[in-house]
């Protein structure tokens, strides 16, 4: 238990709250990496998910893609992106780039599957009724399917955000920044307090991300539905 106390002491030490290796700087790096990756992943995965859910094309492959995504270790995606970057873009390999690409790739499957399932689960009788009232495909999508699918889309974003924030902690392994720096450096320097402090910060940031997206989901969901996320196995 001493280790935990030392970690907490490290956290409240003012010396660790300033400079390029200070807590605010590392939190900011971590948040930047995560937000950029989440935004890119959303911009890629949500439109594709909407299209697949609306047109019902490629459903089988979407489910397979999500299952494969689950089985690929985050550490592997990060490592592969780094080695590719070292070989193909050596001047960029030691910056943000490989981490951002890896985090984006990791976020895509869960956003895609939840968006697709959200749209696909919308009651078909309601969709038929909307079409019968003369709504175009585009109107059906934006005024009916998207609002109804919103809880699941938000579930996808929440799960992706948490996974991205968690994996951003591994960026330090490939010479990146973020809160993982404390863990990786602490492990190399055999400084337990630094390791524990880093682990606490990563855990707290993940929990706050989860909380923020839960609140956002509540704010964006239609009032008639509060069903939790469901995804096919």
């Amino acid at each position, binding site marked *: *238990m*001493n*280790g*935990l106390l*030392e*970690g907490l002491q490290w956290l409240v030490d003012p010396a660790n709250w300033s400079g390029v290796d200070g807590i605010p700087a590392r939190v900011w790096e971590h948040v930047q990496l995560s937000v950029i990756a989440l935004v890119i992943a959303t911009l890629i995965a949500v439109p594709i998910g909407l299209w697949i859910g609306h047109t019902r094309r490629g459903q089988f492959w979407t489910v397979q893609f999500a*299952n*494969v995504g*689950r*089985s*690929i*270790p*985050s*550490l*592997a995606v*990060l*490592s*592969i992106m*780094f*080695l590719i970057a*070292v*070989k193909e873009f*050596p001047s960029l*390999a*030691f910056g943000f780039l490989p981490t951002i690409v890896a985090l984006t790739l990791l976020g895509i499957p869960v956003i895609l599957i939840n968006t697709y399932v959200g749209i696909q689960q919308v009651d078909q009788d309601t969709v038929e009724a909307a079409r019968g009232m003369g709504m175009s495909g585009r109107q059906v999508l934006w005024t009916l399917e998207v609002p109804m699918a919103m809880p699941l889309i938000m579930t996808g974003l929440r*799960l992706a955000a*948490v996974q991205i*924030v*968690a*994996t951003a*902690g*591994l960026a330090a*392994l*490939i*010479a990146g920044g973020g809160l993982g720096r404390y*863990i990786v450096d602490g*492990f190399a320097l055999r400084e*337990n307090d630094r*390791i*524990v402090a*880093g*682990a*606490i910060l*990563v*855990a707290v940031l*993940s*929990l706050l991300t*989860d909380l923020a997206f839960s609140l956002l989901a509540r704010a964006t969901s239609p009032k008639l539905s509060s069903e*939790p*996320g*469901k*995804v*096919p*196995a």
Partner: protein
Amino acid sequence: MSDFFVGATTILAQQDTEPLIRWIWISDHADEIVSRGLQHVYLTIVTVVIGFLIAFPAAVYASRHRWAVSPITSISGVLYTIPAFAFIFLLLPITGLSLTTVAIPLIAYSLLILFRNTLAGLDSVEPEVKEAAVGMGLSRRQLLWRVEVPLAMPVIIAGLRIATVSSIALITIAALIGRGGFGQFILDGLNTFFWTPLIVGVVLSVALAFAADLLLLGLQRLATPWATASGVRAVAT
């Protein structure tokens, strides 16, 4: 960092001639591949079995006492959200480089998946079926083991499949403290800028996940021949 960069660029010079897979490396490391594989399988079994032994009674209890659903979901949700590698390093000063340090975060991660699916499975049993069973004179225990669990089995196994596949991928992280199974090859490849171990580690880890998934699917078909796999919907958190 600059040393790291110089080292990396010298290795870069050799990279153009470096094939993605050096088959000789694989035959040279056959023993290590087997031992890492066993470590990976062992950790997977420990994680999923202990996770299930905790989640199953919790789900049975929650299915009978609805007030318990929300607190159990919240607690396992927090455990699920804490990143496994952060959790490992949080435990490191307490439990050291032991199996426990790795197993606790992995089990913690699996609880939410296993709890929600087991509960969803139990909830999917029609009330009429349960009433009929009680009417036929089954005790509560008999009702659980002879009616509810068999009928809930497809969803329970769907949860086990998600937990198993996720755990197999997640275990690779434990390579950071030397207990990551195939993850060790991924980390070795990363640290030495050498593609072969990295690819071997990824391919074997994914292959293990697929094999375990198929095994559980086969088990479900055997256990519940009346259920079709496509009709089963798992709750992925």
